């Protein structure tokens, strides 16, 4: 249980000091060296909202020594409304074979740009990611992925628990590009900024009475200082949020101007791309550029963005580049490639790790022309120091192996050639090898092991999946 804000303030003596905001920028607090954890690195989460069809993201091209392609063709039709991707569409997109069955695997043709990065060895495809007793509700499954607590034991996010262990009250270590704080960052110890566009992130003073602004700022800051110390969590939240917002409005807008001036062609490339993923990644690029060039009072190194539209119950489409699912893939792949290239040009791609996830995959057998909610699916991890390749084994999609609803089953049995990758092993690998959290601390404060049947529950951790070293 992380310290509550009030506990923290009492312990640090900030209550007695009080009103620091009203007087001046709290330099020492904001400038406080980040604990030697993420160091000079960055971490980006891209959430595919709605349940991305994993089977049409990483697809069997042949049977190898098993039946994956045959099973795939039995579940996904060809012709009108059919979702099947043909071997000819997939072959140019081939990644490493499934380690268990030897079946050749290919990325959806819409992910061609990602394949370029894969060929550079910068993309890890982590197969068959999920958790025990898959939940088919969007809301519940998102909550499970974000909290990494299938039993519902906590509301805090897995990144949030890491942040809570390493940062304090007025640090602003994380920024979500969008309107709300994402569940994986949730906690009550430190501030998470939400920004739609850094350029517009200014405090709205009435500029007609410029001489009055200092008074307004002082009053605003004082009001929020009082609220921060309230025993009512709602009011403390507003106090803390208002404070973080005010301070950030004094630091972030300049990042936009600096980036646009220094990197005009990259700026334009994001505009040309035009997708919301590209536009959101550009905001992250601006912040990264700012930090790399020494912008004052900017410390966000954890970012989150989302892309919606993956709940493809109908009109999902197959390989056709104009089809719904393919367009989503193209947007994501082209945007990630652009972001990576931008960072590489800046010489910092080795400092960035991006993880792409969705709350579940989709039903193995398609419905009329779409797919209903499913279970385990692939997670993508990319970055300059990621060890590219395919990790984990493909789920068993044979009709006889599916559960009552037609979804693949979660398994942790060591001998199972279709063994699932528990999401907590993916998170643990990132926490241990990217964020440098000690292995015992991960188990103790972020990802507690489950008890129960070791074949169907997550009772043994593997925080060394190999994709980050």
């Amino acid at each position: 249980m992380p310290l509550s804000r009030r506990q923290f303030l009492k312990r640090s003596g900030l209550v007695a000091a009080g009103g620091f905001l009203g007087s001046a920028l709290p330099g020492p607090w904001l400038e406080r060296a980040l604990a030697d954890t993420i160091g000079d690195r960055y971490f980006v989460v891209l959430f595919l909202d709605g349940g991305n069809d994993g089977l049409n993201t990483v697809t069997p091209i042949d049977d190898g020594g098993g039946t994956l392609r045959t099973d795939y063709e039995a579940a996904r039709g060809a012709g009108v409304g059919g979702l099947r991707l043909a071997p000819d569409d997939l072959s140019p997109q081939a990644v490493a074979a499934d380690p268990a069955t030897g079946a050749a695997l290919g990325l959806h043709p819409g992910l061609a740009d990602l394949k370029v990065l894969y060929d550079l060895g910068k993309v890890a495809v982590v197969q068959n990611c999920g958790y025990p007793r898959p939940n088919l509700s969007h809301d519940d499954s998102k909550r499970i992925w974000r909290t990494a607590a299938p039993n519902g034991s906590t509301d805090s996010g897995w990144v949030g628990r890491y942040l809570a262990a390493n940062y304090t009250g007025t640090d602003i270590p994380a920024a979500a590009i969008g309107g709300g704080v994402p569940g994986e960052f949730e906690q009550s110890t430190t501030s998470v900024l939400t920004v739609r566009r850094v350029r517009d992130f200014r405090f709205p003073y009435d500029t007609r009475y410029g001489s009055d602004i200092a008074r307004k700022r002082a009053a605003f800051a004082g009001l929020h200082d009082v609220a921060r110390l309230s025993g009512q969590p709602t009011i403390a939240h507003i106090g803390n949020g208002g404070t973080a917002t005010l301070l950030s409005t004094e630091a972030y807008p300049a990042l936009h101007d600096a980036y646009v001036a220094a990197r005009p062609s990259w700026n334009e490339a994001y505009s040309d791309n035009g997708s919301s993923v590209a536009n959101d990644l550009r905001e992250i690029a601006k912040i990264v550029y700012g930090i790399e060039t020494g912008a004052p009072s900017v410390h966000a190194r954890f970012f989150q963005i989302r892309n919606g539209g993956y709940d493809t119950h109908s009109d999902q489409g197959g390989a056709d580049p104009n089809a719904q699912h393919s367009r989503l893939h193209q947007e994501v792949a082209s945007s990630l490639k652009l972001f990576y290239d931008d960072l590489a040009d800046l010489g910092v791609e080795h400092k960035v790790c991006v993880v792409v996830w969705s709350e579940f995959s989709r039903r193995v057998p398609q419905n009329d022309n779409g797919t209903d909610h499913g279970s385990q699916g692939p997670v993508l991890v990319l970055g300059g120091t990621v060890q590219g390749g395919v990790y984990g084994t493909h789920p068993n999609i044979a009709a006889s192996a599916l559960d009552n609803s037609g979804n693949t089953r979660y398994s942790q049995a060591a001998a199972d050639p279709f063994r699932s990758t528990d999401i907590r092993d993916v998170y643990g690998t990132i926490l241990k090898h990217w964020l440098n959290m000690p292995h015992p601390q991960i188990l103790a404060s972020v990802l507690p092991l489950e008890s129960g049947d070791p074949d169907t529950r997550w009772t043994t951790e593997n925080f060394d999946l190999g994709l980050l070293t």
Partner: protein
Amino acid sequence: MGDANSALTPAETKHLLRRTGLGLTKRDRRTIARNRKTRGELVDKILRFKPKKVRFKGDGLDDAVDAWLLHLWKTRTPLAEKLVLFWHDHFSTAFDTVGRTGLMTKQNQLLRTHAKGNFKTLVKAINRDPAMMEFLDTVRNRRQNPNENYARELCELFTLGVQDLLGQDNYTQDDIVQIARAFTGWRYAVPERRDEPDYERAESSFDPDRHDFAEHYPERGPKVLFTTTGGFGPGGRAFDADGEGAAEIDAVIDILLDHRDSTGKNTTARRIAYRLLEFFAHPEPDLAVVDEVVAASGFDVTWSIEALLRAIFVHDAFYLTASAAPFDGAAVKSVRWPADYVIGTTRSLGMKLKIEKERGLRIEGGSGLRVRDHLEDMGQALMNPPSVFGWEWETAWLSSATLLARYRFARDLGAAREGRQNVLVPKKFINLKLTDPDAILDAVLGALGIEDQLTAEERDYLLDYLTDGGATTTLDLKNDEDAVAEKLHGLVALALQAPAAHLN
């Protein structure tokens, strides 16, 4: 223990009007000062309204949202509209997926018609609502491959909830599949008007030739729900008992609303009561209170939303958060919805909203954003909720991005402009003869209806601003234009940016 016969203190009257209204109007303030009615009497008065009709003009979504917002601003029965907002969130439907404005306005009117009516009737109407049929794929639910989208959300969000209030599963995946079968064959037809499709008059229809009859799909088993939950016993309950076909979707609702949770209480009644308590009273209501309001209203039998609301509004739990600041930890304060913050503020300050040609709904005299753009920036794009889950409530309304949008709105309201360009007309909300800064501050906070939400310490910061740290001892609102344009307007903006302004 209070009840319907309890007298109301002014603070409680204010709380009741704030929670059931949109801002505190002059009329509300008079009621607070003079009220002699008991809880039950005043609640009955508030609940006494007839469903209105909003006149949706124009044909784009923006026009529809503007018409709705204008109605929110105008209404004399704000509770009716607060309920429409509640049901819009509950039966969340987004234009971005539906794609037809006429279907959205038709649904909006449906929610208004049934806002305090019969919950069972409302759900049955939603079953056949064309916007919902588009949004959750009923029109794409084919018998060959039933589409589970609507069936799942019907159970998870509209009625039972995934789990009951004690954490036990309410249904299984098989129940979802069976319910999806019932909805096969449903479509809607759109009549034409002057050679154009008239979506507002779209009507659902049933085509038996497209329906999943049991004899065609023996492998799907009998048309039975809830063999493991619901208290129906291992045989479950058949939804084709009254015959197969068009009647099945009503039968499904009858069964869902008979479902008992793991303690034998009506699952849906408890959940709807819980949601309404969260919305009107405070977050995380006690289970005992939930059961009390259901029992007192007979909601699990009659499904009268009005009766349930009355039981909530006369219950002690509703008045838990009625006391003034400073607040103790037990009574958790609620966060105002953006629609309440924006519309309520304009109503409290006596501002006028007007639809300007080509420019949309704006505050009269204002040069700032459209009202609907303010709301969208605050995270509440009406008729376009973020997903089928509707909006996230409470502190989720207040991220730094959406806080900043609230600060902008406050600035825009307070931003001083010359002469008739003022959107803020001081004489509409404050006595201009006042000169004492203390009294002026009280008047402004009173007009905004937040004077009881501020601690003395917070109030001091505002006074400090108004008096330039004590340097000013009198303000001449009548003659000193600068005092008004700079300080009074600045004070309104600052007060609306204060934490207290976001509390309910």
